[in-house]
């Protein structure tokens, strides 16, 4: 793996990731292509669908090595969110059609789950799909659709039975983003990035063959998908790379005539984060080993999500502290890979935007409050 990454990961790409620059659609597609040529784009897929069929430990090693080498992240929506659902619940036709297109990069998928009124309470979603002959007619609005501006397909949770109990009336639909009646509106985040979108549906006609599995069973599939979203949920590799970057910057920053790394207050903060990360790394491995042995993860994945994101956010906080006054400038061109150089030390342009952007880590994918509810419910029962 190290050899592959050393040879095939383009230098300009790892440099961009190292200092926190955006890659853009082409960059991500290029990296997916390189991995696909190697046969490593889908570590989690069964071999029959063209994947590596690696177990949890093997996948973990791969993810760690990729992080260490500053490889771009694999965009998960098609590869690790939709694909497992299609492989388990999709028809043969759906599998044959969509899975190869995910590997080849022909399709870029996005996720249509959250709605303005359905965040933590996802099952209260209102986007409506009404069966009319051989089509569903979809009306409603999705939000927080990550990289929806690049996507040509969206997998959606829609309400097909408004009279059933909340979770029971939901279906899982695949929708072509080019269908008339779909509008993607950008949401600009607090760090100036365009990463998420609103997706509006007005009388959008979706062929019934785009239904995955059975009607009104979408919640079951979504829950299955959520367990797959939980792989690499602790983000240990990101944290380790982040901590290295903090130390690197702190060595070059002078505080009272000495490198910041020698300042006891700053060093103590870094040490605490590192101590937490060392334990997290082992917690992560323990849970991964159980998963590799075939045990389904329970509350443990919620624990990984909570603690893993807290550690990542703490490291983002350290990074902005390390940069001092040079955390303040906002040079969007430097972040987007334009010609404008950074103002402060290498990597400083991204530290504050990333600190703010990564507040999302404890909000998305089931907020940390929801994760704690899950842990409490399992451990304390109905009383929670």
């Amino acid at each position, binding site marked *: 793996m190290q050899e592959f990454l050393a040879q095939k990961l383009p230098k300009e790409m790892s440099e961009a990731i190292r200092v926190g620059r955006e890659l853009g659609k082409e960059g991500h597609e290029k990296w997916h292509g390189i991995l696909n040529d190697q046969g490593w784009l889908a570590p989690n897929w069964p071999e029959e669908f063209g994947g590596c069929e690696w177990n949890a430990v093997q996948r973990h090693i791969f993810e760690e090595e990729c992080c260490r080498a500053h490889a771009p992240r694999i965009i998960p929506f098609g590869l690790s969110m939709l694909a497992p659902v299609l492989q388990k619940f999709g028809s043969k036709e759906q599998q044959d059609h969509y899975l190869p297109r995910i590997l080849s990069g022909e399709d870029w998928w996005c996720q249509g789950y*959250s709605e303005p009124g359905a965040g933590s309470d996802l099952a209260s979603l209102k986007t409506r799909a009404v069966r009319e002959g051989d089509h569903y007619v979809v009306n409603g609005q999705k939000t927080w659709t990550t990289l929806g501006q690049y996507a040509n397909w969206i997998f959606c949770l829609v309400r097909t039975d408004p009279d059933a109990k909340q979770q029971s009336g939901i279906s899982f639909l695949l929708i072509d983003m080019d269908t008339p009646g779909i509008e993607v509106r950008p949401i600009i985040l607090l760090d100036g990035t365009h990463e998420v979108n609103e997706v509006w549906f007005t009388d959008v006609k979706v062929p019934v063959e785009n239904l995955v599995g059975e009607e009104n069973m979408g919640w079951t599939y979504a829950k299955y998908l959520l367990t797959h979203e939980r792989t690499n949920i602790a983000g240990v590799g990101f944290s380790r790379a982040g901590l290295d970057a903090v130390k690197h910057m702190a060595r070059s920053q002078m*505080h009272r005539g000495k490198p910041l790394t020698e*300042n006891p*207050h700053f060093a103590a903060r870094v040490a605490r984060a590192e101590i937490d990360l060392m334990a997290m790394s082992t917690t992560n491995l323990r849970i991964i080993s159980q998963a590799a042995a075939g045990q389904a993860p329970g509350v443990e994945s919620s624990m990984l999500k909570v603690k893993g994101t807290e550690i990542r956010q703490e490291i983002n906080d350290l990074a902005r502290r390390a940069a001092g*006054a040079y*955390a303040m*400038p906002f040079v969007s061109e430097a972040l987007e890979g334009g010609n404008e150089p950074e103002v402060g030390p290498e990597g400083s342009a991204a530290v504050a935007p990333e600190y*703010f952007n990564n507040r*999302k880590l404890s909000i998305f994918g089931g*907020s940390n409050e929801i994760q704690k509810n899950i842990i409490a419910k399992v451990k304390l029962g109905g009383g929670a």
Partner: protein
Amino acid sequence: MNFDLTDERQMLQDSLRRFLRDNQDKLRASTRLGTSDNELGFDAAIWGKLAELGVIGALFSEEDGGFAGAGFDLTTVFEELGRVGAVEPLLDTAILGGGLIAALGTEAQKELVEQVIAGDLHLALAHGEPNSRYDLAQVQTTAKTDGDGIVLNGRKAVVINAEAADYLLVSARETGDVGDEAGISLFLVPRDTAGLSLRGYALLAGGRAAEVDLENLRLSASARLGEAGGAYAALKRATVRAEVALAAETLGAMEAATELTREYLLTRQQFGRPIASFQALQHRMATLLIELEQARSAVINAAGHLDTSPNEQALQIAAARNLIGRAGRLVAEECVQLHGGIAMTEEYALAHIAKRIVMADHRFGDTDTQLERFIDHSAA
């Protein structure tokens, strides 16, 4: 004890709060990321109105041509500015720039303070350097006497309001070593002086700043503010006043953040009820409100000690800024978290407010630096 504002300060607070509320759309417009490119970084019309309202004059003593200028006048003004996340450079033009000219300037130089109070002049303090971090005495920029003039060379980092400033107050070392307090002078430099070049950029939390390069910049000796090599005490004093103001601004932003969050918890429905009804969230909100009152007291402590000994001042301001650094981060992060995704959007008011709170920790010394200063001054 009576902690109420005096009648004058109450009137100042009321009129400023009303003005800021009535102009919130304009104020918001200049906080948007990207919109501050190729502009001043703030709204010039708002600036003029602030001067008219007497807000700038309230930051200066009568002796200096203003009408107030005490610690609690500063905190009254800046708390209000913080509540709306205003990016107008009152700290830079008035407290730092105007304050230093008032402290060090000749009668002729002090005429600039009148123009500042009238809203007709902008200033920027060009003091920090790429390697100085938060240490006031770390000055590498040099000032060398050359015939009857002075020649400056060096680089100044993250000079806020530099592009809008008519004059930059540039610090430079005339004698001594890089970390010495003695030997630092301040010079009044018109922005268009040959040898001075700016690389301007927007700031993540609003407003603009610049890297300032000084290359054989030639001045007459009359550009010096105060005694040769003797600017450190005044710099320290102006910075302490700026830190009191910044602490109050952050307090105001923390108030706004918690108010927005309280309203949101009461309005947002999930699982069929307002999320304010969940005890896990109630307790977190309660913690924020406790920390907010602690922050308010810390600001009062700092403002009330602005006229005490330098050591006592320094101790109190370090305490206030350390506490606000900790409480501010908690409030900013928790308010975003309690909202969820909506607070991550630039459009939602909390996003900008949260950035103001957190990024304030990057001026004049962060939470850890304040802790070090507190320990130093406690031992003194």
